[in-house]
């Protein structure tokens, strides 16, 4: 609406620490805005997965036809891929530390490890779905099929997004893109990844380990 003719100056890369501080002035809380935004987002994600898990709980034991969880779940295998995801949380937190310390070599190592672990989790999930489908469980078979696939699928999509995120951080780091890879960006991706991990911790407990009950 209002045009305001002003002499403009091109943005340049921050030349000195003081200038950097001016571009991102101190916040009232002292928390980086992106990080605060990420936490606010994660608080919201709690309700997202809460609704999915709540739907699963409401429908546990309500299916009128099989196959049912106790016919299909392979607890040792699931335990294994739970470990894969837990390990990836460790590699992420180490990547985060490396980024803070400015250790580029370690950062790349742990980012790469995270991507591999994330991919193998997705591989496991693919294998599990394949096995269940062969056993006759489809999305439309019964309430268990619907709730299980949608809940774990949603989680899987979150894992995939995380893998893509870490992969792009890794590639940017290898190409020396200083704007894209800094301690804040790695920390944000890490927070997201840990959240995806704790969702799986809950899913593993509530969906898999309680499957004999109800």
């Amino acid at each position: 609406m209002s045009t305001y003719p002003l002499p403009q100056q091109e943005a340049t890369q921050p030349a000195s620490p003081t200038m950097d501080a001016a571009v991102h002035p101190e916040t009232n809380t002292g928390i980086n805005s992106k990080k605060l935004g990420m936490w606010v987002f994660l608080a919201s994600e709690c309700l997202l997965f809460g609704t999915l898990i709540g739907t699963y709980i409401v429908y546990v034991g309500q299916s009128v036809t099989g196959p049912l969880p106790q016919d299909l779940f392979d607890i040792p295998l699931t335990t294994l891929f739970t470990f894969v995801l837990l390990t990836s949380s460790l590699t992420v937190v180490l990547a985060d530390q490396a980024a803070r310390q400015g250790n580029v070599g370690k950062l790349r190592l742990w980012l790469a490890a995270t991507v591999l672990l994330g991919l193998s989790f997705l591989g496991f999930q693919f294998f599990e779905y394949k096995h269940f489908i062969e056993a006759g469980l489809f999305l439309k078979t019964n309430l268990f099929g619907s709730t299980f696939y949608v809940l774990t699928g949603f989680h899987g999509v979150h894992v995939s997004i995380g893998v893509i995120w870490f992969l792009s951080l890794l590639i940017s780091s290898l190409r020396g893109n200083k704007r894209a890879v800094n301690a804040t960006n790695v920390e944000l991706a890490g927070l997201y990844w840990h959240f995806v991990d704790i969702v799986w911790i809950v899913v593993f407990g509530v969906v898999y380990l309680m499957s004999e009950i109800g």
Partner: protein
Amino acid sequence: MANQMQQQSKAAPQPVDRTKQYVAIFVMLGVITLAEVGAFYVEALESMLVPIILGLTAVKFLLVVLYYMHLKSDHRVLSLFFAVGAVMAIAMFLIVPWIVIWQYT
């Protein structure tokens, strides 16, 4: 890149190396997971399985949130937001199954 990161780390509260702590948490997470799976297979524990699993899951959840996501040492407002979200999710989705199913069983 290193230059930029050092600047960032200057602002971070504790630039100490925490690898040991992170690995220790990881070991604890692993042990608890094994305990959960163990409880799943022990028939004597069947009647107690739900509280055991819920309790151990909560411990794992808290370990990751407090140490890997740094909520223990980070600004308290972050913990507040996340706690409100998590508690609301848990509360509402215990009430719904109770109204729909559990109160009749």
